[in-house]
């Protein structure tokens, strides 16, 4: 159970990190793409 707990807690942080990156990437990519289209 102690190994499970270690994986659970590490995984908890990892999952929120991935969700954060996905969300920010999606939001910022939109603006960055707009700018690049604007430049073209």
């Amino acid at each position, binding site marked *: *159970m*102690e*190994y*499970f*707990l*270690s*994986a659970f*807690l*590490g*995984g*908890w*942080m*990892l*999952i*929120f*990190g*991935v969700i*954060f*990156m996905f*969300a*920010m*990437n999606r939001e*910022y990519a939109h*603006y*960055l793409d707009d*700018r690049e289209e604007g430049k073209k």
Partner: protein
Amino acid sequence: MNIYATCIIISLILYFVIGNVVGRKVKDANDYYVAGRNAPTILITGSLVASFLGTGMFLGDCGESYMGFVIPLLTVSIMATAGYPLGSALFGRFVRRSEALTIPEYFSKRFCDKKIQKLAGVIVVVICFIYMLSVMDGLSTLMAQIIPFDRKVCLVIAWASFTFFTVLAGSGGVLLTDTIMFGVFTAAIIVCVPCISQAAGGWFNGINALAVGDVGVSNMLTFGGNLDWMYDTPMKNFAWSVTYGIVWMLVVSISPWQSSRYLMAKNEHVVIRSGMFACVGVLVVNTLVLFAAAMVRVANPGVEPYSAVMVWAAMNLMPIAAGILLLTGIVAAGISSASTFLSLVGFSVVNDIMEVKDAKRSLKISRIAMLTVSVLILLVSLVKPPMVWWMTQISSSIVAASWGAVAFGSVWWKRITKQGAFWGMLLGFLGAFCVRTYTLSTGTTLPVALDPFWVGIYLSVIGVVVGSLRSQVTPEEKLQRDKLFVVPEEEKDRVEMKKTRNTGYAMVATGIGLFLFMVIFYAYPYTQAVQG
């Protein structure tokens, strides 16, 4: 007076002087309430961590860790830290866009309704008042063990040390002193862990002794913790940990003493980055300090009272300089939380409940209100009614239950209305408050699924959904929500966007690092010790 007491008094005078210097720069209500909305990442990060970690952590949680509840508490605190990126990215930056002075004012602007501002303002005042009583109690108890004065004299010293600079300097002073205090107690933890583990014969010997040695508590390092402490089975304790991990994650995401820090940020990139750095900072401090408190049991299994375990460690297991650093760090943690709570109470009384709009009057009345509230808190603390202890137990689940659904719904659910928000907040508050009052006054232990937090959140979600579906979103409410999603031009800097996006890597790396730390320094040595 001993060397520890002298150094603590000097540190208090230093905070007082810094607060006074900053106080002279306050020109208007904007400076006083939100530090001119110009704070950089370091100050927001410092204030987020310092206002979250207080005497409850260094006395209460450390005491429970020493009594064998280390792993369940570690589970709660690690789960809670995920609230920082969640809160900053999904709530904090939208709150900042509203340009409100307080979080209750944000709700008022978002739902075009003064009634919800008053309700939220009252909840802030009640919860922060209760929290301050708890912090004052912790600070005076701590100082009475170090400084050779009566507890009531210590109470007045602790009160004076944060009241004057908070009243004078407002948020600017609180941000600066919080950050200095964050630095002091983080340094203290980094120094104290090697000292304490050395006293336990080294980290791995300490883990071995706690796992199989005669330390007076059984199941010291199992995932369910000491079974004589709360619930009688490991799975029930684990369920409790996960429940309170979620409660504290919500508290970290949306509570007024955390999310109001984002109102002071220079820009949205500062909001998101400081949330990420605070997540890593709290995680490191919490993990190290909880393990350190448990290891003190190897050196001395009979510390009394158990909540003073870190004070005993500072005075008996560490070199004098390191002990001084730890004790001033613990006092700093208490004072930084108290100053944040006091400023929030003062702001809410004037801005949300009295609704003083005149800028010059607002600044003056805020200071008078803050001083009045602070004197009131001192008087109540001096009398110390027997209800104080259980009152402090109520706060965290109330704020999570009453604000959680409404805060996230205000940004992410376009169908939410002012009626839904009002009823969600009110029912969540009453549900958590009444059930918690019942359990504490009768000594009843309810199943985890009926914990006050869960009852409050069920009622809050019902209030939000039913209240919203029985009414219509007005054009003004729709306009306010649409405005939240307009990204300000100054935020669209390509380099800054990339930097902010990349902070996500820090959290992914933290998750991997945490797993490796737990396996190498806890799970592997623990199972080796148990299997002989």
